[in-house]
């Protein structure tokens, strides 16, 4: 079978006498840049994303990370890269498949294809040096890949990137990414000066010569594209209303922690949470904050609890396996009523699972992980912006309610990059120094308010407040309870705090009509994708709405009432559930999505679930399909 390749860059196509390029106008376009690890595709994409954001596009960027640090070159599972989704509106998720790909070799490209990442008929700009590689094995691989990819119907444009780059630099592997950036700048008509500024920033620790070379490669790519490519893409831009910042969810958490006045972060490295501490490592000390990398996750929890006990605002960051190790200490913090913020950047589970991939399956562990009754507050940011603000909320709640607040982020938010409104920082978020005032006579360290369970903390240093906190059952004076009936009361006081807090929450707003055929309920990072899916099916005339929960424990009020206005309620989650119709699975023994189980137990409403654990964020199109398949029978517009 002969391979048909649009080999632009060959003599025929190049040169003066070109016709004007085709212009594709679209409100939504996704680009991927994929390469072997170490070829800088991510930097290319990040700059492209930033420039696009600056120019007024909605942007969502997500990194494609291989499982190994440095997988063998040209391997199917080794794709390292980035996806940038552009829109004429704020973009809230990674979208469906990719429209345009720049690939540095055909193997990583093939890997993406086999993962169903590329749209049917997508345009692919591909380094074509491999076709004529001296190693026959490589040439054969290329040949086979081309057959598979052509078969799949992509529009492939071969480009001799390496050869072109060698006209500027000696090591083309390190230059291609900027060539690719130039290429993209031309295709999307990006402001080259803005791109150059970003290059300067990205290489600020390198010499001017390096910056210059990269500028040169950028120009080369731009120039080459303008001469050789027959198409451009135009995504309309918005007027930016006010200052925007762009970052990923882990950066937002790090900045949020600083803005919240956190003073100590204790952690042990674990993917995908670690980069929060990388950011903190760089900036935290400037604010007087301590980042402590402990010997393990247990110690990290202990150090954070110790600091918080001593009146400093402390938190710990981890992911699944680390959460597991902190189980015992979380029970102690709840029991002693020491405020503690725990950020869990969820990854695929169980066990080591899929360390770099997204999953939302730590909800039940966060809620119920502790032996004994350990009421905690749990909240989940849904956007990168919320990652920032959740830290401020979490700190306040932890201190007011003297308890553990778990913030459930995930790998999707952690590595997703998107612009959001620059927050107005408030000095009162910082909180003051530890209260060191003398404790009034006969003060009690757990002077529980009978209605709310709240009490004031006696922080070391406060004269007259001396007492010993303990994980043993204890009374208001923190004395070990030999009369075990105190256990019933103190348990109630700890639980009461959640009831009191829930009374301050409002019912969450329904997205779409307040009543209808189907209500899709979600939590965490899936919000953007769910609402996009709901928009699409509503445009098709379906009576579908969605509801997104920020607080998972306690749940906000009014859910049962909201649910009652829909004929069917269903959660959409990235965690495991048995699927109806599977062998031996029935309504009674079906193991359900985590939120759906909690909602059922709480509201007694038959909340169904649609969940997947494919190790990737949900695609709006998949949710659309799920919605259509799950509409209750007799739904208006069902067959539309």
């Amino acid at each position, binding site marked *: 079978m002969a391979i048909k390749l649009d080999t632009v860059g060959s003599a025929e196509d190049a040169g003066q006498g070109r016709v004007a390029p085709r212009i594709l106008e679209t409100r939504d376009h996704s680009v991927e840049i994929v390469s072997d690890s170490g070829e800088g595709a991510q930097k290319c994409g990040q700059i492209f994303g930033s420039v696009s954001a600056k120019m007024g596009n909605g942007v969502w960027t997500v990194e494609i990370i291989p499982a190994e640090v440095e997988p063998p070159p040209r391997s199917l599972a080794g794709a390292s890269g980035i996806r940038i989704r552009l829109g004429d509106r704020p973009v809230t998720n990674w979208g469906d498949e990719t429209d345009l790909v720049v690939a540095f070799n055909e193997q990583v490209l093939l890997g993406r294809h086999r993962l169903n990442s590329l749209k049917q008929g997508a345009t692919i700009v591909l380094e074509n040096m491999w076709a004529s590689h001296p190693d026959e094995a490589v040439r054969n691989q290329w040949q086979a890949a081309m057959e598979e990819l052509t078969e799949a119907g992509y529009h492939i444009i071969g480009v001799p990137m390496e050869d072109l780059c060698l006209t500027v630099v000696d090591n083309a592997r390190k230059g291609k990414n900027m060539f690719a950036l130039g290429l993209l700048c031309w295709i999307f008509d990006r402001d080259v000066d803005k791109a150059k500024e970003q290059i300067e920033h990205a290489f600020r620790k390198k010499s001017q010569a390096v910056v210059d070379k990269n500028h040169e490669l950028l120009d080369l790519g731009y120039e080459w594209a303008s001469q050789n490519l027959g198409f451009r893409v135009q995504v309309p831009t918005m007027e930016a209303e006010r200052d925007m*910042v762009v970052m990923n969810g882990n950066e937002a958490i790090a900045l949020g922690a600083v803005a919240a006045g956190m003073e100590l972060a204790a952690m042990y490295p674990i993917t995908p949470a670690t980069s929060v501490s990388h950011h903190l490592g760089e900036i935290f000390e400037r604010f007087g904050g301590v980042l402590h990398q402990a010997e*393990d996750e247990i110690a990290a929890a202990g150090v954070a609890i110790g600091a918080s006990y001593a009146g400093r605002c402390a938190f710990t960051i981890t992911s699944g396996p680390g959460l597991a190790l902190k189980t015992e*200490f979380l029970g102690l913090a709840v029991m002693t009523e020491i405020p503690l913020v725990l950020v869990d950047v969820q990854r695929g589970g169980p066990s080591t699972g899929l360390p770099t991939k997204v999953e939302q399956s730590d909800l039940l562990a966060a809620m119920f992980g502790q032996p004994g009754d350990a009421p905690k507050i749990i909240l989940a940011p849904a956007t990168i912006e919320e990652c920032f603000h959740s830290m401020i909320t979490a700190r306040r709640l932890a201190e007011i309610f003297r308890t553990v607040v778990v913030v459930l982020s995930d790998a999707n938010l952690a590595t997703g990059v998107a612009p959001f409104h*620059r927050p107005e920082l408030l000095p009162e978020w910082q909180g003051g120094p*530890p209260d060191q005032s003398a404790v009034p006579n006969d003060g009690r360290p757990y002077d529980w308010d009978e209605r709310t369970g709240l009490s004031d903390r006696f922080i070391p240093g406060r004269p007259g407040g001396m007492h010993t906190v303990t994980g043993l059952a204890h009374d208001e004076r923190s004395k070990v309870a030999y009369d075990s009936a105190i256990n019933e009361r103190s348990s109630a006081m700890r639980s009461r705090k959640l009831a009191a807090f829930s009374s301050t929450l409002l019912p969450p707003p329904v997205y779409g009509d307040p009543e209808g055929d189907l209500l899709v309920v979600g939590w965490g990072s899936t919000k953007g994708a769910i609402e996009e899916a709901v928009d699409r099916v509503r445009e098709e005339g379906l009576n579908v709405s969605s509801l997104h929960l920020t607080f998972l424990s306690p749940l906000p009020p009014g859910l049962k009432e909201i649910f009652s206005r829909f004929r069917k309620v269903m959660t959409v989650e990235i965690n495991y559930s048995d699927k109806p119709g599977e062998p031996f699975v029935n309504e009674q023994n079906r193991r359900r999505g985590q939120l759906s189980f909690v909602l059922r137990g709480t509201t007694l409403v038959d909340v169904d679930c649609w969940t997947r654990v494919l190790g990737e964020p949900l695609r709006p199109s998949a949710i659309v399909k799920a919605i259509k398949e799950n509409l209750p029978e007799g739904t208006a517009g069902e067959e539309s």
Partner: protein
Amino acid sequence: MSCSLFHLAEAEDDRVFEMSDYQGPVARWCSGCGDHSVLTSVQRILTDSQAKPESTVFVSGIGCSSRFPHYLTTYGFHGIHGRALTLATGVKLSRPELDVWVVMGDGDCVSIGAGHWIHAVRYNVDMVALMLDNNIYGLTKKQTSPTTPQGYKSNTQPYGSYLPAMNPLEATLGVTNASFVAQTAEWLPAHLFATLKAAHEHRGFAWVRILQRCPHFTADMYGDVVKDPSRVEMLVHDDGITVPALDKIIEHRVTHDPKDIHRARELAEESEQIRLGLFYRDESRPRYEQTRSLPHHTADEKMAIMQQEFDRYAV
């Protein structure tokens, strides 16, 4: 804003503390338990140093010995089994002005807590860490601990402990950045007091193993030694821990310069006599909390820095 706090804590204070000011409720250890003696010694040191009860924190794990903080009138944190050192590190790291003590049992410190123990020695955060070593699990009723002598019968190893007892002195002395390692015995109050005092004065992580009687479960363990001072050998040196009161009672003495780590390790080995004294001290070792002494900013200053940070992310 945040700076004033420290001035407050340092403010002049004309209170005078008696020993009774540190005495909490009656300690609920068995009669004859060695923990009582340690408690008394610690209360004496607090009195001696006129420690402010509100600025003193005792952190412990779980075990008989870990009930310690409950019997004092300072701040206390009765934590979870094996993790006292992590909590104490958090306290001291974030509030360097507090005086932090840690009380652990042998199971607490060198069995379940072994990882934290090794790392706490390495961090060398300024605190006193006491391991009350009764060579057994007391609170849970007589199970083998790592320091239980080989062959000694317990409820989990009723035919005798399988392995030679771990020597925690040697292990501690093997950890890079160790800065204070001593051994004492609760039945020699003068030595105990002198050792705790030296530990308390040490700038860095002062780790003290206190041999402790548990008459309830291991009445036979130290019976002979207590009666027979010739079973004890004291490390003596001008720079070490001197206990004149014992000069006449304990005849076996070995001169040991606590700066000499090699000799310290040799002396730490099992020997005919039980060796008590200061094995090693080096105040020049880096302290983790020192390497982390950080600027104090007002909220407004922080705001300003934060704006700069945000500028980096500006679109």
